[in-house]
């Protein structure tokens, strides 16, 4: 599942010198900021130089993209299309995370459920969410519901897997302690020990879902569901590449914002851990 979009990759501790931490969990200091500025300027310069040499329908310049972005923003179209994307993204992620989390907890805890469902899960889990697009189309049509279905499948398996791992590896020691303190039902054990112990894993699943599902959204929209992804493909079909790239940037921004929000929630819920 390690793609370049993987939002958890940056927590691996590659950066070794702690300074001050602010936006997006990265470490910032003046030197880094300066290098970042130089790198960005260099990137834009190369882009600009390339864009000047070729027609706009092959590669628009940064200025043209900025212009297109501004035009979409002031016309209000950007918000409309972002709203369309959110209309299938949010329900898909929400239902997928809850359902996947519940199944993961259930299978991780109950040997009976685990034994009964493992064969089905083994076969279904490797299927990429986008492969379900055929069912999304014939069952639901490629509107919001169909796209939400694809998003749901993505969020479902990601959260399922993390919840399952978290519950399965819940501390035996803490479970024992709880039983010596009078916990004598599965329900209490799950609620008081297993789920809190698995919460870091579950929340990693939620965070990964929130990130990865933007890919599901765009993929579903490339097939025709309305939203930002649909604008990317139709603009490109009309050779309006600046507009296409403008909407690609929109995806980047909403990805970063949603990931940031989930991280905030996560560090709030796991304040006992840091």
């Amino acid at each position, binding site marked *: 599942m390690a793609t370049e979009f993987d939002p958890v990759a940056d927590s691996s501790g590659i950066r070794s010198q702690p300074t001050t931490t602010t936006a997006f969990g990265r470490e910032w200091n003046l030197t880094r900021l300066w290098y970042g500025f130089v790198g960005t300027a260099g990137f834009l310069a190369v882009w600009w130089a390339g864009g000047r040499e070729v027609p706009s329908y092959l590669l628009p310049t940064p200025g043209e993209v900025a212009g297109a972005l501004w035009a979409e923003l002031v016309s209000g179209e950007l918000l409309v299309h972002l709203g369309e994307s959110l209309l299938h993204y949010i329900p898909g992620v929400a239902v997928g995370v809850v359902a996947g989390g519940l199944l993961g907890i259930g299978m991780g805890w109950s040997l009976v459920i685990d034994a009964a469902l493992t064969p089905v899960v083994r076969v279904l889990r490797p299927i990429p969410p986008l492969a379900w697009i055929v069912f999304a189309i014939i069952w639901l049509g490629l509107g919001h519901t169909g796209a939400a279905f694809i998003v749901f499948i993505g969020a479902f398996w990601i959260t399922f897997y993390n919840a399952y791992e978290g519950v399965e590896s819940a501390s035996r020691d803490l479970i*024992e*302690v709880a*039983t*010596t*303190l*009078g916990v004598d039902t599965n329900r209490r054990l799950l609620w*008081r020990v297993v789920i*809190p112990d698995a919460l870091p894993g579950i929340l990693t699943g939620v965070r990964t879902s929130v990130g990865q599902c933007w890919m599901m959204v765009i993929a579903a929209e490339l097939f025709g569901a309305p939203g930002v992804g649909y604008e990317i493909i139709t603009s490109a079909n009309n050779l309006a590449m600046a507009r296409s790239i403008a909407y690609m940037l929109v995806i980047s921004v909403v990805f970063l914002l949603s990931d940031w929000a989930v991280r905030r929630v996560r560090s709030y819920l796991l304040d*006992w*851990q840091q």
Partner: protein
Amino acid sequence: MRYHNDAAITIDGVSKQYEGEGGTTTALREMSLSVSSGEFVTVLGPSGCGKTTLLRLVSGLESPTDGDITVAGKLVQGPDPNRGTVFQAYHLFPWLTVRENVAFGLVEQGVPDAERQDRVQEMLEVIGLSNFADAYPKELSGGMKQRVGLARALAVDPDILLMDEPFGSVDMQTRRQLQDELIDIWRDTDKTVLFVTHDIEEAVALSDRIVVMSGTPGCVQATVSVAESRPRNRSAQWFVDQVETLFERIKSNT
């Protein structure tokens, strides 16, 4: 001296075997021991002698392969908050504050809110951690963690306290302090304590009776009573002699 008569814990011909890949391992063989109500008994022995297994059997976390364990006349068939257990590795719930950790058993017993808070506050005062009530375990030192572990087990007011090398992970200074605190608590509360350690000095400093175990498989090798009053002076001649005698005893058997 306390009044010891009715047996709080009776271990009767208990054996414990584990089935492993290399065949059967016997951790305990026909072990018998009786602990009187209010008595402080320490099981002393080298690592691997089965003393932790014995404690787990009494706590009900595992069942014996053979023999019976009865507590207050009732057969042990599983864990029970009336047998409070303290572990060497503390095993505090990391997502709960000190206060919530101590309250854990009370919540499970359905103790009403107001009563629970009073009881927790009382326990926090006993262990001297009132100022850390809202801290998470990660913020505590080893000694503080074990105080919380002890308070958590004591909060539900068990008759029996089972302690598995509880001070084995803290430094010497803290260990002494915790030992003294434990003795104070024990004197004030009339608990029956079954304590497991490999630290001979600790056993002599704390116990009414020391059960020396030898392994493998573990069985009782000797039982030594210590009648001296507490607090015990560790540099007194009898103390030094007792430690030395026990040391020789264990050495000759390993």
